[in-house]
């Protein structure tokens, strides 16, 4: 079905099921309980999961397939966001034109940056992309202030023209982003006993786009084009000596991956119509590299898992403060309670980066293939037969 073989189809269906049921899966704890702290099933975070999933899927098309490590991918995300917000300001609050424009503009940007950067490979390519991204950041942050509104971030105002829509709603507020009338902000709450699940329109729009993006990525991975990209990764020199010009392939991969980033940026702005320059900063570019490696570079599902993991830490662990800890350990004797809280303190709240760093180190050292390898190892423990199959596929890979 869909031109996929059985294994990929199963993967696609599993991902589809996971994303569509995410409001349930991510809210496993009853609202009132102490563990509700760890619930991630609220619209903003779920949207971030799938949007950064798209971003990481796109990055993986470049990094996972061709091996070209771009350190400036956040620039395309930022460009996409700015384009989308400008579309909301000038044209209408419908998200379709905004997303289309953000993909196109990000693609054009990627074409220009890729054309220059791809003249080099390896570390030089990474540095070039980093330089371009920092340039874009500096432009957005101060030079192009009339277009980007600098540090404050580009926002909607009541006096935007919005040619195909209203500048302001009847009651004098800024209209909200919508998909042909379906407001991105609208959500339905469902109370099920002590649980509370939120189904947000915005999330499901993002989820559908993510599934499409994921499907497209599978097709690219399995296509002759994808095979060519893998060939570039395994040995570009050898490929060049066969008389084949690999540049158009890498450029195409770069542009596709830039368009994915633009799509993510456009979606982000559609969910929350604001674009800030910090989206383009090098830390944001580094984040997508971490996501991809944490999840498993070169695998289909890995980047999505990595994106989810990092966003979960950023939004859930950073919200745990000493107050919450004292609540958890209240049953301990006073002295030991304080000691426990002091010991855990550096790893929570603003220390979430530390926890994530440790986790990242553990993954890279013990599971070089990322979370996907972890999953595979667990599977292998249960199914010995699967293990032999995997060994066979490994043996099929070309020798370096």
């Amino acid at each position, binding site marked *: 079905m869909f031109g996929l073989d059985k294994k990929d189809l199963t993967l696609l269906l599993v991902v589809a099921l996971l994303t569509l049921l995410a409001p349930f899966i991510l809210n496993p704890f009853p609202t009132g309980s102490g563990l509700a702290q760890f619930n991630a099933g609220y619209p*903003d975070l779920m949207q971030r999961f799938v949007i950064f999933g798209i971003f990481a899927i796109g990055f993986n098309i470049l990094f996972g397939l061709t091996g070209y490590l771009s350190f400036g991918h956040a620039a395309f995300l930022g460009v996409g966001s700015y384009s989308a917000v400008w579309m909301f300001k000038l044209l209408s609050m419908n998200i379709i034109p905004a997303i289309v424009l953000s993909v196109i503009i990000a693609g054009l940007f990627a074409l220009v940056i890729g054309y220059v950067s791809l003249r080099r490979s390896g570390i030089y390519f990474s540095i070039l992309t980093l330089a371009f991204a920092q340039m874009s950041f500096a432009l957005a942050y101060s030079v192009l202030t009339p277009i980007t509104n600098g*540090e404050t*971030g580009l926002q909607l105002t009541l006096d935007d023209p919005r040619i195909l829509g209203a500048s302001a709603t009847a009651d004098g507020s800024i209209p909200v982003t919508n998909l042909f009338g379906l407001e991105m902000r609208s959500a339905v709450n469902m*109370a099920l*006993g002590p649980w509370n699940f939120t189904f947000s329109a915005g999330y499901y729009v993002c989820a559908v786009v993510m599934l499409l993006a994921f499907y497209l990525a599978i097709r690219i991975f399995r296509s002759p084009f994808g095979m060519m990209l893998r060939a570039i990764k395994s040995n570009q020199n050898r490929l060049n000596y066969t008389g084949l010009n690999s540049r158009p392939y890498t450029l195409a991969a770069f542009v596709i991956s830039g368009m994915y980033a633009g799509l993510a940026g456009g979606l982000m702005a559609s969910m929350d119509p*604001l674009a*800030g320059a910090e989206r383009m900063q090098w830390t944001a570019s580094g984040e997508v590299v971490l996501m991809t490696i944490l999840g498993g570079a070169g695998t289909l599902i890995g980047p999505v898992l990595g994106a989810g993991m990092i966003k979960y830490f950023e*939004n859930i662990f950073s919200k745990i403060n000493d107050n919450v800890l004292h609540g958890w350990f209240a049953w301990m004797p006073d002295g030991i309670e304080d000691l426990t809280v002091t010991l855990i303190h550096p790893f929570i709240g603003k220390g979430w980066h530390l926890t994530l760093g440790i986790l990242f180190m553990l993954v890279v050292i013990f599971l070089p293939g990322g979370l996907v390898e972890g999953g595979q190892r667990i599977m292998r423990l249960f199914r010995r037969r699967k293990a032999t199959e995997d060994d066979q596929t490994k043996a099929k890979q070309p020798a370096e």
Partner: protein
Amino acid sequence: MSNKTLTRRGVLKSGVGIGAGVALPTIFTASSASAFTNEPTGSSVTLGFNVPQTGPYADEGADELRAYELAVEHLNGGGDGGMLGTFSSKVLDGTGIMGKKVQYVSGDTQTKSDAARASAKSMIEKDGAIMITGGSSSGVAVAVQGLCQEAGVIFMAGLTHSNDTTGKDKKANGFRHFFNAYMSGAALAPVLEKLYGNDRRAYHLTADYTWGWTQQESIAAATEALGWETVENVLTPLAQTDFSSYIAPVLNAGADVLVLNHYGGNMVNSLTNAVQFGLREKQVNGKNFEIVVPLYSELMAKGAGANIKGIVGSQNWDWKLENERGDKYAGSNAFVKSFGEKYGFPPSQAAQTCYAQTLLYADAVQRAGSFNPCAVAEAMEDFEFDGLGNGPTTYRGADHQCFKDVLVVRGAENPSDEYNLVEIVEVTPVEQVTYAPDHPMFAGGALGSCNAGA
């Protein structure tokens, strides 16, 4: 070949299945339609404290959080009650807000608009916060204020000094107690004239975002009215930590006053650089070279150490205010006492404004008799109060800005201890810093109408 044999097991199975299917809708009790976003239904109400815990304004953020915790304690009847005792409105009785116990969640804005909005969103969507407050950067305040307007909750701005917060970017759901750049300019100008004369050439270094822009505009307008000349205005990135390269050209430009439109860690670094370059010992155009820092705080004075001596700026509040200027500023001492007893040092102006904002919100809810943002906003608009440390104050309804006296301060020459680094030069009366809601520096925005969400 189909098998239509009815087995006992099959009948049982499908019976259970159908039964469960029929029963399913009854446990889906859709949550009751609430009148506004996050209507508190239980015995408690959640406030969201969104402050910078990392980045250039982290010190201010930490002090804000302390003040919020203190305010929650006082609202719930703990501690000595702080400014609740001196507040002119007496509806708050230490039983929480409208009998509901006050709880809070905190988040890190990272001094980035994106991160601040994400943090505020999770407070609203996940934790059910009914009000968001905090922020130590006008960029963040403007971004979060916009979000709160869309989501339909009240935003009580913390430390934000840009004219835009209650000017171009004002929102019906947002309120600001802190003073603004225009007020700083209006309060500083007479003092600068007295100290440095009418013939000065000013060079501005300005933090490159909404606050820096509007402050530079305000100070330049106020000083040019005195007859000063603005030689140049250089924008510096907020994330900058070393300002040496910006300081070097100042003397070459022929300026004799350096205006640092910087705040927090930025100001500490730029001032230290300027002093290291020996600017303060220089003579230019036959006059002593002077440095002005229009927005000041004790935390910055502490960070800058001896470099701050003799440097003039403005403040919203100072912990010594009631001691030095009398009963008009009642509440200051009560607040300093309870803050000092809890944390061991006097509060900063950031702490005071955040504490006051929390109390003002609680009071408005109590007076309105509802948590509905529209009712709360109505109760807050044109509300006149006293006893929160700033003297008689009005929350102007036209732009949701508080109007009160402004302090002009100077770095102490011989501070007795680290808490007396700043001395009050003058208290500018509120009439002198009041402006019309349609003043050109504040024009271009509209409050819109209040949004209750849901």
